[in-house]
């Protein structure tokens, strides 16, 4: 177990070896972009491992990182007839792919789209996130995430009705009649009626004012 002494585990100590390696440079950024599908795998089999393995699998990435740490250069390009370690080459195409992927990541993350691995991008890449890639290469896999503000559902009549109801008609009927969030109110217009028990439906007046009220807690 991880070491702790407090009842509520608030002092639990995580050894440095258990910390996720930070994305600190362009190479690790490229790994990040590959892992989450922003860069399509270059030299890889068509049959991907499960749905979320649209990018490099861990074995390859681990091996790659280990070799880098050892100081062994690894070529990411298609295997050449010569064996043995090669200088790390980044072709122009690969570089463009990296910059393009970086821009895409910056765009969807709401960052300035610079195409450069800047501090803001580094910070965004190091934030906690889900391990499922954002983009799929498997044609049968679920739809890629929407990159615009509006979701890409086709509008049908029923959707229009729904959105209309949500955005306009329902609200307008509510504003004509009553106003409110969780509990709707009808202001009784008879000011001299102080006996609530005698309040009758005939004495309603409709108040179009909005009584703002936050969402109720579950």
């Amino acid at each position: 177990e991880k070491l702790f002494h407090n009842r509520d585990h608030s002092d639990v100590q995580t050894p440095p070896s258990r910390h996720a390696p930070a994305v600190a440079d362009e190479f690790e950024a490229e790994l990040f972009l590959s892992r989450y599908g922003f860069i399509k795998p270059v030299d890889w089999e068509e049959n991907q491992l499960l749905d979320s393995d649209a990018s490099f699998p861990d074995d390859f990435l681990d091996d790659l990182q280990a070799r880098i740490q050892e100081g062994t250069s690894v070529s990411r390009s298609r295997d050449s007839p010569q064996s043995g370690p090669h200088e790390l080459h980044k072709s122009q195409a690969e570089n463009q792919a990296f910059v393009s992927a970086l821009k895409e990541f910056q765009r969807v993350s709401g960052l300035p789209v610079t195409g450069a691995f800047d501090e803001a991008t580094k910070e965004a890449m190091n934030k906690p996130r889900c391990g499922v890639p954002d983009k799929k290469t498997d044609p049968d896999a679920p739809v890629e995430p929407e990159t615009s503000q509006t979701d890409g559902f086709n509008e049908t009549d029923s959707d229009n009705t729904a959105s209309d109801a949500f955005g306009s008609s329902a609200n307008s009927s509510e504003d004509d009649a009553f106003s409110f969030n969780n509990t709707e109110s009808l202001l009784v217009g008879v000011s001299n009626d102080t006996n609530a028990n005698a309040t009758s439906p005939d004495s309603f007046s409709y108040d179009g004012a909005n009584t703002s009220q936050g969402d109720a807690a579950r």
Partner: protein
Amino acid sequence: RRKRRLASLVLERRRRRDLGGSGSAAFSKTVLRWRLIGEGYSSQLTVEEQRYVFRLAFRMWSEVSPLEFVEDARSPLEEVDIKLGFGTGRHLGCSQKFDGTGQEFAHAWFLGDIHFDDDEHFTAPSSHSGISLLKVAVHEIGHVLGLPHTYRPGSIMQPSYLPHESSFEMDWMDRKAIQHLYGACKGRFDTVFDWIRKEKTPSGDAIVRFNTYFLRDGWYWLYENRNNRTRYGDPVALQIGWHGLPSDGVDAHVHVWSRKRDAVYFFKGTQFWRYRIENDQVFIQEPDGHRYPRMISEGFPGVPAPIDTAFYDRRDSHIYFFKGTLVYAFSVEGSSLARGFPKPIRDVFPPVERGDHPDGNIDAAYFSYTHGAIFLLKGTRFWRVAGSRERWRRPFLPRNGLLPHKQVDQQWFDICNVHPSALKL
């Protein structure tokens, strides 16, 4: 390569098993079993806390989709649809290892299992620190059900974790996304009504408020008209909100409200109850000695029992009882059936469009203060009664004519069942 090939075979088999009827990739059944596997408990929360969070996470998806989830701790593992577990680094036979504290906090397989990185500081919903296990679980379940990441602000399917918010719930677009895969929630209702509450403002003015309730079997939902959804956390068991009523549901609700009267009645089978608003429970006995429940035939002579539904019409101070293809107008003042009744529903509420009529066996008759209209609900459809506003615009409309039907789920959204086991978390 062998591992990849095997995984690919498993995936293919799951796809064939689980392809939805429309051909889209989704679970093809509506009741899904899940389990927190024994070898995958977190070291940070008690097992009960973990199971509670997952029950709540699954229930949240149930509340916005036709899917129901049941925790299954007994069946053989291969019969469990969704398995959840915590692990660190290489974990649970998974091909995608976790990275330690920070960055990746969980992952999920489409139509498959969910793994949480136990090196992350997961916390219970009541905590304001760490990573909310509930939020992460809801997100990952979304993946299992078939939803991809989205960058839309406010979506539960955003890839990056946003710190604790005071409340997080499924917004409109998230709901529509899951319903795009699994359809909207449909089903008949026992009764629908607006419940009136009388209050006083600080300045002494009398205020009348209302809330809309949908009842089905032994459950009910409060519907928030302004938000176009039900209250978060609904449905609730009927006996919790309405003390003294039959726990398996009611047939009708009637609020007789005039200058002289203010009484709420519930009907079930051959009996009816009067509900006391002041102390929120049924009357036990009237001042005149009548004890509740009373026989419908006794309190409303001439009205058959059981009834399909009923509503009180303030315009003529009649209660309209529906039974089969007939409607019975009961005069509250005269305490008897109105002259000429019963009549066919078609005569009293004629169709505006030929052939478009519920005919009979109405599920619910509902006067809505939000819409200022009467609705007749049957099955998954409803008909709006043409009121003075409609008839002013179109004078040729017959009195009390039924406008062409629409779908209930396109007017009142996301009124979804949950599995009975999820009623009490």
